[in-house]
């Protein structure tokens, strides 16, 4: 009997409520003190495509999904066809035998258990819409797993809380009927066991949720965005919370407007953010340089999906790193942060607003569909001691002391004291054109905008690089110092890599993991120090060209020979990396 360790997948057509079923199931588990990770794949359309939700449950903390399924819930035949291979020997399939015709023979899998539950019939009995099969089958699953029905009930109540009580009641009933059907007609004990554990309350959330919360906590007051997968949910959350937290949330005509609006808001003094994916970010590139030139603080989230162009709108990739690092004509400082988990999504989004204001630069946060949309149980964020830091923002008193205020004063750290429109005595122009310390662009006058002034102003802005470098935490090395294998990666691969580390530990292989959280400014010194003594270095990225490896070579001279790359639109399975490592010859087994 497997206890408190299950990989459960539900699949069906888009429109069947696959996602909702996944989260309800997961929530019930999470509320029982178990750790949960949900991965979902759905095509870029609403109904008619194949959707899955893969929920992994464990009593230990887990960081990603697996490529194996213990229990497959199939709302249609296609789900079985596509995912049969993923079912472990001895695993089960839950399906509606009155609608789908399968036998162990037809499947050529003697090693799976078939749980047939008459989902359609139950829904009809309830007089409900076919959609409700999803809840029935979640109930049935919980019975097979022998889990506490009360926890599922609570999850249903709170999930549909905003909708009418009627809907909640109907769903509860549906779940109950599925549960009871299994217990009565199939098995009282079915070989699985999920058991409630004592644990602190945890959140079940996505990277998008964590980012929105981080922004709200940081005092982001203005959010302007154009919807785009995989980060549209940030827009929805901000809009939903606008009243409660006094935010102005603007859905714009396009991404160009979204970017220029937050620059306007940032210039006026409000903390401002937007979020988009690569296509939308392309449209923001021109204004990114504007933020840099006018030294206006802004925060932009970029959620990667596979490109080029429209690519695979609902899948995942890490293909935009280099794009973000050098997007925009001319040379300017930007901060690029790639959170690796939901905690980092929250804390680094919060941090981003401080950095943007302290250094008066644009800050880009790079996530991907895998991190942005997938759910994981997460501890409550420690938010009480987070400090708002606004940098060199002059108070009216300070400004009154200054006789000839210069917005772009050439300072040692490259950062000039800032004032906001509305303040007396600080009137100035913030120009996209190259300008002098006072903000005059004197375009016509070679006598004023001499090559020397131009050089000085560029150097002033570029000097922020070293000021920022001093402020950022060094990259983290997880695991022992003296490992045989050093994995190097960035962003959402952190989860699968954490899982791989567990596997390697079991094998007695000493491995560590260098996570590059800040991609720009790049922590060249530390990375060089760590990698130059590492034994076998392996670069892991969800892209084709090993972008981080290229960056590391550019910045440190170190060429990483071993690469585990994936570029099929899907995130890493821990096993894929594990096998990749085993394939690398010079790793002792």
């Amino acid at each position, binding site marked *: 009997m497997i206890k408190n360790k299950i990989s459960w997948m539900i699949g069906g057509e888009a429109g069947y409520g696959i996602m909702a079923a996944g989260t309800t199931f997961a929530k019930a588990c999470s509320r029982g003190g178990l750790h949960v990770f949900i991965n979902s794949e759905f095509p870029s359309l609403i109904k008619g495509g194949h959707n899955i939700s893969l929920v992994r449950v464990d009593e230990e903390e887990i960081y990603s999904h697996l490529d194996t399924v213990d229990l497959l819930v199939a709302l249609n035949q296609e789900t079985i066809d596509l995912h049969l291979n993923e079912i472990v020997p001895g695993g089960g399939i839950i399906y509606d035998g009155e609608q789908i015709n399968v036998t162990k023979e037809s499947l050529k899998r003697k090693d799976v258990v078939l749980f047939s539950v008459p989902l359609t019939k139950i829904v009809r009995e309830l007089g409900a819409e076919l959609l409700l099969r999803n809840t029935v089958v979640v109930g049935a699953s919980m019975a097979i797993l022998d889990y506490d029905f009360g926890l599922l009930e609570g999850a249903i109540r709170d999930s549909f809380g905003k909708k009418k009580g009627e809907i909640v009641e109907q769903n509860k009933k549906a779940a109950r009927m599925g549960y009871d059907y299994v217990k009565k007609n199939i098995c009282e004990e079915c070989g699985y066991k999920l058991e409630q554990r004592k644990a602190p309350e945890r959140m079940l959330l996505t990277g998008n949720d964590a980012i929105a919360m981080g922004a709200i906590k940081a005092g982001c007051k203005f959010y302007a965005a154009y919807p785009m997968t995989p980060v549209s949910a940030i827009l929805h959350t901000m809009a939903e919370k606008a009243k409660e937290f006094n935010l102005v949330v603007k859905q714009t005509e396009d991404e160009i407007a979204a970017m220029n609006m937050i620059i*306007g*808001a940032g210039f*006026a003094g409000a*903390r401002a953010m937007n979020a988009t994916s690569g296509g939308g970010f392309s449209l923001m590139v021109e204004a990114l340089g504007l933020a840099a030139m006018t030294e206006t603080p802004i925060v932009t989230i970029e959620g990667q999906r596979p490109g080029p162009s429209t690519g695979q709108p609902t899948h995942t990739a890490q293909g935009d790193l280099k794009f973000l690092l050098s997007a925009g004509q001319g040379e300017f400082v930007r901060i690029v942060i790639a959170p690796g988990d939901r905690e980092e999504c929250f804390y680094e989004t919060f941090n981003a607003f401080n950095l943007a204001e302290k250094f008066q630069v644009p800050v880009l946060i790079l996530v991907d569909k895998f991190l942005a949309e997938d759910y994981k149980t997460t501890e409550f964020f420690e938010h009480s001691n987070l400090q708002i830091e606004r940098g060199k923002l002059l108070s009216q008193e300070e400004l009154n002391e200054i006789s000839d205020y210069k917005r772009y004063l050439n300072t040692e750290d490259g950062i000039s004291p800032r004032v906001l*429109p509305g303040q007396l005595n600080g009137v100035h*122009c913030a120009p996209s*054109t190259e300008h002098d310390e*006072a903000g005059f662009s004197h375009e016509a006058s070679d006598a004023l905008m001499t090559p020397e002034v131009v050089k000085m102003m560029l150097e002033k802005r570029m000097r922020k690089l070293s000021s920022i470098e001093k402020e950022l935490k060094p990259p983290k090395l997880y695991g022992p110092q003296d490992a045989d294998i050093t994995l190097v990666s960035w962003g959402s691969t952190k989860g699968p890599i954490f899982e791989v580390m567990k596997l390697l530990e079991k094998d007695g292989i000493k491995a560590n993991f260098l996570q590059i959280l800040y991609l720009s400014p790049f922590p060249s010194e530390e990375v060089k120090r760590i990698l130059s003594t590492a034994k076998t270095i392996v670069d892991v990225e969800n892209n084709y060209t090993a972008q981080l490896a290229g960056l590391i070579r550019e910045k440190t001279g170190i060429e990483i020979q071993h690469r585990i790359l994936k570029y099929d639109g899907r995130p890493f399975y821990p096993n894929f990396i594990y096998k990749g490592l085993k394939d690398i010859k010079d790793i002792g087994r």
Partner: protein
Amino acid sequence: MTTPLELKTKSKIQWCPGCGNFGILTAIKSAISEAGLERHNTCIVSGIGCSGKTPQYVNVYSFEGIHGRVLPVATGIKLANHKLTVIGHSGDGDGYGIGMCHFMHALRRNIDMTYIVHDNQIYGLTKGQYSPTSDKGFSTKSAPEGVIEEPVKPLELAIAGGATFVSRGFVGELDHLKKLIVQAIKHRGFALVDILQPCVSFNYKNTYKWYKERVYKLEDLKDYNPENKIQALEKAFEWGDKIPIGVLYKETRNLYEDYLPQIKDIPLVEQKIENIDITGMMREFI
């Protein structure tokens, strides 16, 4: 309250001698003064073009953005701090060419700001390509055989698009222009002032003389009612031998800001951002 003199900056003015922009500069400074605005509570936003140099010459807070994006920047500023008076300066290329999308969407929002378009029917700064308002047949460097597109009719689009204040001025009528701008500033909502502005270096066709011979003031018409939309559309269509200047259309409508209880009491920028409590929000994810 400020005087036109206080509104002068230290920058040398960089327009061609005789350029219509000088008139606009005079008018905007007088209008700011006359409308009783304070320097530190006024913010000018421009794009790129000869028009885009305006912020450098008016001593109020200002932002020179990129080509075509005056309105989004102005929108961001206004929504972040709606206590500021926000005035956009654009060009016919900046505003009606590359910036057309933002223009059409700003019209329907009706945010409280003034939008001044320096309409010289040419791309001045880039030295003489035709613009969206260039007359058909007009020959330029980029169309030696003459423009073959129908010109954009900005006022017609503005009215059709839902603007609440639509007007046209002419730098050859400075006092009239100044008064228009004052009205636009005082209008509660999005106010367009399209200004006929001769470009003496590149537009050899639409000169001071050409405009002078054609413009007439709507105020001089006995029965013109700027609140009649259909009549306004007809006037907006008029272009050729006679060109109307003045307020073509005016309407009272709620501001975008009126629908935002979030900023009813204090502007975003003045709201406290320390110690925002997200405990409740976190609990929603249990």
